[in-house]
């Protein structure tokens, strides 16, 4: 059969050739990633002349004349038309089209044609991730996939913190989606963007039921690039970026500090601390030894710092074997200015180097047996200052850098914070802070820690067709083993602090005296190690066959997973997965999935759970009546799914079903019916393509999460239970009783148009909304005098609470005539915030708190990507934003507790009030003060929109690139977090961050060169 076809084709070509015997045109066809495309149809428009590209994407075709137009078409790609003219070689690049319906979509434990997918899955090609210089591909995901929220919390080089949520939150326990790389649970954030092929998120029960007890929070699935047959394609990229913090605090200068300090003293009826002489020295900055005039934020943080990235990858293969191999290198510098400490010759800078590698092989051993091997990994070397010596709690990035940042924020600009002429650490003891927390000393003199992370992941798979049993049957085994080791070398020391004092013998002189309890010590060595291993085996039997109009597939899979973390008892999962799909005429689709799995942390008899899902789809556009009525509608599919998924992420509580004894007391009472959380999810989706270039997809979902593990306090009378007090849960176990609902929708609109082979526009806009509601968390009703007697039930997770304010107290009369606020703090003074008595009892107390704004986790996420290509130029940008989010302004970056910032200049004072000047901040009171309680004054709208990335590139004409033997040379510049618009009253912190002491988040400007051979 096959041979006959080939012969016919050959004959046809010969016939054509003989008939026209005209000009032969040759060329190659590639995709956007320069991978050769095999099987692309090449046709001369208006004729029957046609051919297909070979495995290397090469073709040869005879054209009748110069007016001939070649049409290149391939499923999943926009057709291209090229007028031949005088060309003898026509190379084209086919671009993925909006009607990429034949494309394979990765689903749990398999792939499906996009047209027949009936689950809520969003997929993106990783090419878009390469348009941004983000050091971590998680950062680049923000706004790309509808339903996925990504918030970057910190920017520590090599240790970025990201929060991922799929469709928001539905539980108070672990909310992290399951993350898979090539089907195995792995963290993808350390991957090089150029080793990634696609990233998908699985959202509804139909998509995630196969992950059973771990699928309820959704799944982020990453697939890596594989080779295509053809001659090797070598791709080299090198990038140089400059990073800078998006936002910095605005600490006032020394002169303003002293003035504001005096203002506080005067307001409190005390004598000013800084006399006119001192003020004048601060203003002029002429006696820095005694009257320092500093700007610590800029003195200790760099304005710009580099990041470098190099990637080399090679892909190719032949008919039996394909390979893709890559090596990537990343260097990230840190924000803090550090100095080598010569005495011990070490480098305390914060920076990271990472090398990623990957080799993915596919081998067809014979016509029925194929195997693949993926080997990848990375080595990361990260360097940080120790910051707080001899304290294990600060070997953690967040803890260590929060001390540095906190100290920088609370060191007034008229303090000493550097070195004496003899090179000793000079400090002014911090008010209220730890005397040892001197940024200079902590960054430069505390030693360093070097963290070396090595990860090797390996996956070996084999697939055997079992046609001899029945056609369409195959079996597959995939085994993975990952090993990660983290070695930390810590060399730390303490340092002696010195204080600058007036020389008693010389009125103009300065002496430096030792202070504090620390002394200069030598470097001491210590080490910390940790080891993680993962073993995963999937064994499956697959069936796929078409009987006339009926498409049937089936899959049954066994999974065994073990993760070893240091010396903990290994984390084990076992389970079975099944899937059956049925399609009729590509019009009516139905699918059943199930996961039957469990883990060791549940009670005996409750270890294994069954998680089914059902889904149906109707491809309306295949119906003749639709085709007739709406010819412009090229594709429309309606799908619906319902199912149950589980979540076993108990926030680290393991073996909570065991009753444990300490001596003869129960120290933990086990919940002998401990189970997973159950999520019931319904989803209805619509996918359309119309007028050729437009697309619109929508999904609406509803989820009800029950069985949520919650403290039993609200259920069990803890006093009568007999294990402790009434108000503490003591040793009573958590129970599966919480209930939360979550609903929302996602909308995606697209427009893709190729105006001609050189001009192409691509717009994709998405928006997603979700809102959850706590139905039951065993909350105990507050007494009747509370305005709101429930603080979580009926509200969104993370609902924030505080007082309602009514402006400032502007006169003594107002204080007298206002409600008594003394119950929540000191008696109010002029300029303090007025709180509203919401329960009408005439006094302001804790009972008067009201819900304020939105949770910190946003309800709305948006993304809008534009790309435009013309001739050799390409331009893209991507806007991303969130809304429906509130943030509580608090802490060192905002309050005057330790330092003054620019905002404080607009604080309430009698002079400002009398002069009618704008007042935007309450009376300054560095001590405790009722005005600093959480209130609607401090909650700010946390919405933001940012130009997440923008890129402009230019691909050199082929004539030029050929001179060095390259097939393509592209120069580009792109940027990350370029502009941010938000509604914060003061822009002292990146809006994505949720704590004022986190390592800053960066913007970056990047220049790159990409060469392909």
């Amino acid at each position, binding site marked *: 059969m096959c041979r006959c076809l080939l012969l016919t084709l050959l004959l046809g070509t010969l016939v054509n050739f003989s008939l026209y015997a005209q000009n032969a045109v040759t060329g190659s066809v590639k995709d956007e990633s320069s991978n050769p495309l095999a099987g692309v149809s090449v046709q001369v428009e208006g004729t029957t002349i046609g051919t297909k590209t070979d495995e290397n994407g090469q073709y040869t075709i005879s054209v009748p004349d110069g007016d001939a137009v070649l049409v290149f078409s391939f499923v999943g790609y926009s057709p291209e038309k090229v007028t031949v003219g005088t060309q003898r070689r026509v190379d084209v690049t086919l671009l993925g089209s909006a009607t990429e319906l034949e494309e394979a979509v990765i689903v749990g434990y398999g792939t499906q044609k996009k047209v027949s997918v009936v689950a809520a899955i969003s997929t993106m090609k990783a090419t878009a991730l390469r348009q941004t210089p983000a050091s971590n591909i998680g950062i680049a995901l923000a706004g790309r996939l509808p339903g996925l929220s990504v918030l970057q919390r910190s920017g520590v080089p090599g240790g970025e913190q990201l929060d991922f949520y799929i469709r928001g939150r539905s539980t108070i326990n672990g909310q992290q989606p399951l993350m898979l790389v090539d089907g195995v649970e792995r963290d993808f954030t350390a991957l090089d963007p150029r080793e990634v092929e696609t990233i998908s998120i699985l959202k509804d029960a139909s998509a995630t039921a196969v992950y059973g007890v771990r699928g309820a929070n959704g799944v982020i699935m990453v697939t890596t690039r594989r080779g295509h047959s053809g001659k090797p394609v070598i791709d080299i990229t090198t990038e140089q970026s400059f990073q800078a913090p998006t936002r910095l605090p605005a600490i006032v200068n020394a002169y303003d500090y002293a003035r504001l300090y005096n203002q506080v003293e005067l307001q409190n009826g005390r004598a000013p601390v800084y006399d006119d002489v001192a003020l004048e020295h601060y203003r002029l900055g002429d006696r820095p030894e005694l009257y320092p005039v500093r700007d610590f934020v800029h003195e200790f943080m760099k304005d710009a710092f580099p990041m470098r990235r190099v990637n080399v990858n090679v892909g190719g293969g032949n008919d039996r074997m394909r390979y893709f191999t890559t090596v990537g290198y990343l260097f990230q510098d840190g924000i803090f200015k550090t100095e080598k400490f010569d005495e011990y010759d070490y480098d305390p800078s914060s920076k990271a180097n990472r090398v990623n590698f990957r080799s993915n092989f596919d081998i067809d051993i014979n016509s029925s047996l194929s195997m693949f091997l993926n080997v990848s990994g990375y080595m990361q070397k990260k360097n940080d200052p120790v910051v707080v010596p001899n304290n294990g709690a600060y070997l953690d990035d967040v803890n260590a850098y929060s001390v540095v940042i906190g100290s920088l924020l609370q060191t007034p600009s008229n303090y000493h914070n550097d070195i004496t002429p003899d090179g000793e650490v000079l400090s002014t003891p911090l008010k209220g802070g730890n005397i040892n927390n001197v940024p200079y000393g902590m960054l430069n003199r505390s030693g360093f820690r070097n963290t070396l992370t090595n990860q090797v992941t390996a996956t070996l798979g084999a697939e055997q067709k079992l046609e001899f049993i029945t056609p369409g049957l195959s079996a597959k085994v995939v085994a993975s083993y990952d090993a990660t080791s983290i070695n930390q070398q810590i060399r730390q020391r303490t340092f002696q602090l010195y204080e600058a004092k007036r020389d008693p013998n010389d009125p103009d002189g300065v002496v430096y005296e030792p202070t504090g309890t620390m002394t200069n010590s030598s470097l001491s060595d210590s080490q910390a190690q940790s080891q993680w291993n993962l073993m995963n085996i999937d064994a499956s039997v697959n069936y796929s066959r078409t009987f006339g109009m009926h498409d049937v597939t089936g899959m049954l899979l066994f999974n065994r997973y073990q993760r070893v973390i240091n010396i903990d008892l290994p984390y084990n999962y076992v389970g079975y997965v099944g899937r059956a799909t049925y399609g009729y005429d590509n019009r009516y689709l139905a699918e059943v999935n199930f996961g039957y799995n469990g883990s060791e942390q549940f009670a005996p008899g409750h270890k294994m759970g069954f998680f089914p899902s059902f889904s149906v789809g109707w491809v309306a556009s295949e119906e003749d009546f639709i085709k007739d009525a709406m010819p412009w509608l090229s594709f429309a599919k309606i799908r619906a799914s319902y199912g149950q998924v589980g979540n076993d992420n108990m926030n680290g509580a*393991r073996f909570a079903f065991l009753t444990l004894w300490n001596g003869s007391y129960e120290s933990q009472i086990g919940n002998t019916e401990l189970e997973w959380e159950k999520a019931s999810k319904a989803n209805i989706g619509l996918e359309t393509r119309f007028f050729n270039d437009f697309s619109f997809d929508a999904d609406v979902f509803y989820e009800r999460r029950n069985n949520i593990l919650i403290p039993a306090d609200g259920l069990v009378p803890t006093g009568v239970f007999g*294990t402790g007090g*009434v108000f503490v849960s003591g040793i009573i176990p958590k129970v599966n009783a919480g209930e939360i609902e979550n609903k929302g929708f996602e909308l995606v609109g697209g427009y893709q148009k190729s105006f001609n082979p050189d001009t192409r526009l691509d717009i994709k806009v998405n928006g997603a909304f979700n809102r959850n509601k706590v139905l039951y968390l065993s909350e105990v009703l507050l*007494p009747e005098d509370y305005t709101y007697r429930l603080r979580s039930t009926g509200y969104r997770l993370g609902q924030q609470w505080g007082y309602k304010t009514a402006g400032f107290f502007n006169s003594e009369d107002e204080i007298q005539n206002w409600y008594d606020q003394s119950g929540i703090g000191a008696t109010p003074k002029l300029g303090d915030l007025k709180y509203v008595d919401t329960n009408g009892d005439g006094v302001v107390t804790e009972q008067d708190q009201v819900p304020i704004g939105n949770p910190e986790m946003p309800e709305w996420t948006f993304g809008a990507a534009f790309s435009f290509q013309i001739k050799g130029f390409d331009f893209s940008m991507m806007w991303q934003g969130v809304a429906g989010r509130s943030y509580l302004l608090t802490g060192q970056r905002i309050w005057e507790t330790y330092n003054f910032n620019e905002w404080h200049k607009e604080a309430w004072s009698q002079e400002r009030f009398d002069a009618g000047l704008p007042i935007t901040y309450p009376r300054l009171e560095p001590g405790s003060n009722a005005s600093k309680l959480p209130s609607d004054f401090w909650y700010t709208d946390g919405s933001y929109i940012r130009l997440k990335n923008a890129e402009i590139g230019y691909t050199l004409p082929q004539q030029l690139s050929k001179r060095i033997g390259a097939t393509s040379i592209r120069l580009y510049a792109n940027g990350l977090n370029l502009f941010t618009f938000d509604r914060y009253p003061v822009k002292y912190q990146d809006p994505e961050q949720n704590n004022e002491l986190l390592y800053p988040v960066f913007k970056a400007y990047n220049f790159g060169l990409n060469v392909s051979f």
Partner: protein
Amino acid sequence: MRQIILTLLAGLGLVFQYACEKVLEKTPDGQTTIDKVLNNYNRTKGLIDVAYNEIYQARDQISFVHNTMECLTDNAFWAATYNAYEWHNGALSLSNPVINWPWASPSEQLWPDFWRGIRLANNAIKYLPQSTVITEQERRTWIAEARVLRCWYYMNLLEFYGPMPWIEEPFEPTYMGWNELVRPTYDELASKIEQELLDVINSRVLPDRQPTQEARRVDNGIAYSIRARVLLYNASPLNNPENDQNKWRRAADAAQDVLNMPNYSLVSMSDYKRLFIGAFSTPVTEIIWRSWTDNSHINNANGVDVGSYPYASINHMWNCGESPTQELVDAFEMTNGALPVTYDDATRTRVTVTPEAAELGYSEAAGGDPYANRDARFYINIVHNMMNYGVPYNCTEPYIIETFVGGRNGFNDVISQETQRSCTGYYSGKDKQIKYWGPGGSQGHEPTHWVFFRLAEFYLQKAEALCELGDLEGAMTALNVIRQRALQPRLQDVPGFVNTQEFIRERIRNERRVEFCLEGQYRFDDQRRWKILNETNRFVTGMRITKGADGKFSYERKKIRDYQSYTDKYLVMPVPLEDAKKMTGLTQPAAWQ
């Protein structure tokens, strides 16, 4: 080929299935599960030992901070704004049990502690039969002990919170029947306790009286004592509004059962103080059960500040704590059996001295002495003005108490501060020893143990029950045993004796107040079960003594403060809100509904 593959697949499937089941059953090593408790002798024995641990060992450690139960009554006043202050302010509410210990975590005391005791006893009862490492004798003994302890904790609950559902097994975390647990009647729970205790007693597993080295452990005498107290309270007006005579009969019989125990006898008045101080290892014939932890720190939190001793440098105490009220002082008879005064009006600040007291020299006039010729127990319990408090350790000169204004223990008019000087003019002396104090912090005191049951209680129980049953002769016979030990005349011989139930009831109640003052929570319970809280707890008074230029003392009775703690809400404490909400069947006491 096909068969090979199929066989291979089947084999793989089996291996996976096996791996599947095995791998999920592992739990971490090195953790103690119940089997490791039951196969270890010490841990098994620990099951009964820990069941004793919820018994309060110090009467000043129930309520913050070192507030004794007496200062929640009209017997004693505690200055400063701690729990007693809050209590009398009327702060008791569903969400504020007041009697707590805010520095501890959790701060709640009584309610969770008693239930914890019940759980620990239930744990012992449940798990001891499963142990493989103890003898049959040990198993039977310890289970019997646990059953008695469970009754003890239920008795505690009864005294504060009223009857509670009888729970015989430790609650499982999956237990969901909370709303089905309903409050029984007092009689139902009392009967259950009685039945349980008689069951243990009749099984003859426990000794009648524990040998000295085991004196902390419960025995039949203790079981009888719990039963008697529970049945007396069951018959009392609060819990027996219909005055069911049968309940009094049971109470009288139960008291008699204790009196019938051969092992106990009253100590003589000369040894009376030995009831409250002295080593645990030295048994006292009258004591049935007492705390086994030395409680002598009570000298530092309640009592006289010996730091003002003029002859040596002695550390000051922390707080004078429970200061006896004038009302308590008035309850002590003269040696001739007469009560010293009658109140002229409801303010209790104007009094008429009874003629028989006046005969013995009682006078509150200037230069008079209201403290001479009083009941012998007065001098043990009440430290008063110009009393010789004894000689501090390692000293030779006696310490003379000066409670008059300006005296070294002088009167304190400020009631809202911690103080070393009494606001009532009196100090508590019952379980206090001056030898706790000595120069430079030296101490020569003996241990102090809180007495849970002593024989005297059961004579007075019997007297009370018989009086209510109309057996006035029998009542007086029992009462006079206690009076005569205190060297007081028989009731029949006291001035103004009337042979009526009312008179005898009043004097029996007065006897209880005097005999057990400053000792435990007798007055607290009695004010409630007799339903006299709203008459007795509205305010308290003290004696403000001034010393004239001529050296003569003037006496002025002074109201210290009004109390809000007299309402019916204070009769039975409410079930704490957090638990009440989860147990809808556990109705609140009437005043709290």
